[in-house]
């Protein structure tokens, strides 16, 4: 019956809430639900057609009931669609705040095609969630990142997305997972100041060695 597909979408959203990464965007399902809404709208138009704009619910209660059912089904589908996308954008915003360079990672993976086999699990996650975005979601992430960067830019002496854990040591050992080009830090190559490389760790270029 109407609304069953929307329900599937919400069940997907429910699963998404409990996952660390973002599962693939359900293009087909979303399309099917919107198609259902369009069909329902056509049904409504067809039902009202013979009345020529002078329909009185009291005169024909069966039609009034059908119209109400159609209307409620459309409204239900709308809520399912919105909630599904809302759950996903929530997750994307969280990823952006955590400093995963979601959009960049995708570009790289498409670009060189070879993902470092020794990559840590969070690297795989970053890559995995990226390819699962719809084009609109990619755009959303890009613009949200820009907004966040502009917001952060107001304070130069504090990194809003930095770790809240006080570091045990000022310097840490890191392992390079992916070629990141020439990177200059103040003190050296592999024994580096944690604050300097926090972002590279979050993006998956480096792995912290404890």
């Amino acid at each position, binding site marked *: 019956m109407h609304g069953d597909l929307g329900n599937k979408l919400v069940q997907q959203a429910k699963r998404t809430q409990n996952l660390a990464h973002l599962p693939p965007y359900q293009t087909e399902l979303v399309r099917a639900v919107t198609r259902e809404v369009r069909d329902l709208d056509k049904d409504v138009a067809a039902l009202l057609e013979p009345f020529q704009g002078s329909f009185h619910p009291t005169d024909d209660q069966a039609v009034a009931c059908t119209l109400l*059912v159609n209307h409620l089904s459309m409204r239900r589908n709308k809520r399912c669609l919105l909630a599904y996308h809302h759950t996903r954008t929530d997750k994307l915003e969280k990823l952006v705040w955590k400093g995963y360079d979601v959009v960049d990672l995708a570009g790289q993976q498409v670009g060189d095609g070879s993902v470092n086999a020794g990559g840590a699990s969070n690297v795989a996650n970053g890559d995995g969630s990226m390819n699962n975005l719809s084009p609109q979601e990619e755009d959303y992430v890009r613009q949200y990142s820009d907004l966040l960067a502009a917001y952060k830019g107001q304070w130069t002496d504090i990194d809003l997305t930095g770790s809240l854990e006080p570091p045990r040591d000022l310097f840490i050992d890191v392992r390079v997972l992916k070629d990141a080009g020439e990177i200059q830090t103040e003190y050296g190559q592999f024994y580096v100041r944690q604050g300097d490389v926090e972002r590279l760790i979050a993006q998956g270029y480096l792995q912290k060695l404890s």
Partner: protein
Amino acid sequence: MSYYDIDAILTDAEKVPCKFELDVPELGYLDNNPAQPLKSGTTIGLPLWLAELLALANRVPSTADEDAKSFVSLNLPPALSNEVMSALKADPRAVPLRDQSHNFYGLGTRMLDLFEEKEICAVLRRTFVTRAADIALHAGKAGATDDMGVGAGEEFLRGLEEWERKLFKKAHDGAKGTKEWMEGVKKH
């Protein structure tokens, strides 16, 4: 409860029995019979998002001596039937609520908004309180042993519905967090 609340939306999909009060030619598909009109008096399980408003929408009486009626009349779903209520009265812990409905309390509160059922209300409250104590007990044990308490009380935990699962997870995380913090204190 927010518009985007996934659990609220899933609760909205729970089915309740509805009896149609009029013939509707176009709605046969609701009864899996699209070719036939839906006859007055047919009872079908409809999701709450449909049933509630169909039951609340008033239609004007067609003749003067008829009372104002709605399109459908609602009934309590099987999850809140007398049998389930008796079982809960006997021992709230012995009933796997999940088998009745994944959103058992959610469904209960929605139905009690529509029905004046003092007794069901009282039974549900007592059930929640009694089970919550048990959930906290299991969660504390599981949190302290690092696994999710597999083995002990497995049958009971399998029967938890969504609210209870959330409660379990919060209690579990709380116990685990306390344990970690205590260990951190000892180190310094």
